[in-house]
């Protein structure tokens, strides 16, 4: 935190306490990470409660799912390929 920002925080009456370096790094990374932002936005758009403690596991699950989806997402299929949402064996 710079002197100017510390002063600003002081003006708002908050105690200027520095978060541990690792935590700040994580927080900055999370802010930049598109998947983190997607998870936050999707939770908000879908009105899903997402407690901070749950977010890493939700994000990890979504990341695995997207990685798996990438295995078939670009698999060439014709435009008229029929989907099988109601499946017949």
């Amino acid at each position: 935190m710079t002197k100017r920002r510390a002063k600003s925080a002081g003006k708002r009456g908050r105690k200027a306490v520095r978060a541990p370096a690792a935590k700040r790094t994580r927080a900055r990374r999370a802010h930049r990470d598109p998947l983190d932002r997607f998870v936050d936005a999707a939770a908000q758009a879908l009105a899903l409660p997402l407690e901070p403690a749950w977010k890493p596991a939700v994000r990890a699950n979504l990341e695995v799912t997207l990685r798996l989806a990438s295995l078939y997402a670009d698999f060439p299929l014709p435009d008229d390929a029929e989907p099988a949402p109601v499946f017949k064996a």
Partner: protein
Amino acid sequence: MQWAHASEIAGAVADGRASAAAVVGASLTRIARLDGVLNAFTAVLKARALAKAEAIDAARASGRPLGSLAGVPFAVKNLFDIAGLPTLAGSKINRSRPRAARDATLIERLEASGAVLVGALNMGEYAYDFTGENVHDGAARNPHDPDRMTGGSSSGSGGAVAGGLVPLALGSDTNGSIRVPASLCGIFGLKPTYGQLSRAGTFPFVASLDHVGPLARSTRDLALAYDAMQGPDPNDPVCTDRPPEPVTPLLDRGVEGLRIAVASGYFRAACFPEAQAAVARVVAALGVTDEIEVPEAKRARAAAYVITASEGGALHLGRLRERARDFDPAVRDRLIAGAMIPAALVAKAQKFRRWYRERVLELFGRVDALLAPATPCSAPRIGQKSFVLDGVEMPVRANLGIHTQPISFIGLPVVAVPVPLKPMPIGVQIIAAPWREDVALRIAHALEQAGVAAAGEPTIKG
């Protein structure tokens, strides 16, 4: 008759060597003695079961015909409706549901054949599970080693049958939830063709992938139960209109003339030595020399995974909004993530599904059945989060079903047969073309006759 097969019980009750009341009473006694160890049951229906058993004995005394499963105690995964109970589906949330007004179709059909429902069974929450662990009801425990998983999500179904508490149970299988516990508990399981058995009166998970079927300690018991449950059902829109095709009379036809191959490629990878050994034993017993690679099985598994997560998330969206804290955290976090999956990826998965189905069905022009592992390993320890295979650490929960998912994805019928390895058993999948349960069951029966597949009796300290 604690370790008797359903067929043996039905025979003994039919000819008067045993009464249904005595058989059911013995099952209830064994449940009372051992369920503290196995944690397979979430409800025991003593009064209902004894009343039904006495009615069967009265029917026999008055000379009325008995069904093919007369006096056979059975239990069901607690996602099946049981009249008078809320249908839990392994959850805390469903405890506040209204009590079911009637039994699920398959319970009605088994009881119409003389079987006797004795209880409801533990399961992974909302069936989104391969481990058999449940934060609300506790983990179901493997009868061969109570420190190990039963597998899931039909965890109590596996434990109750393998532990000799009942000879027959019903489970559901969306991605492997009958075949995984059958494998880890060392029993037989049948996942029929998609749409073959009615799902009416069961709590859903992934409508486009959900199957229901029996678990038992012999192939004949699977066949008897399957035959008793076949038939159209207007209450399940997916249930086939095909007339029943009884398989029990076909079991003794043997494997002569059947073309059997072992699935290579994807199904040979990611296997611990015990899974390889089990497949090798089955291959040797059947004299199989052909190998066939199932095309794009890895992509199929991925697409099944995505459809499951997405449909599961959609099904539970309201409950996630209202009662997120009441879910098992491991299930909740997956469902929330599932609800966020972009629709384009799900639509593509459904398109890929039809393409994959066509390619796999072409294989059945060349063979009648495929062999593959049911699970990559025998039962992990309860609480174990990951295993290391080929130097890669993999989460247990998601990976116990890697060999079952590409098969249920296109609804093929499968019998999981137990190979009684030591110290723990493990299963092999016998996969047939749609509607050819008879082929898979004939092969399973032949393996059982040869002593290669068997449900070993565990020693349980209760």
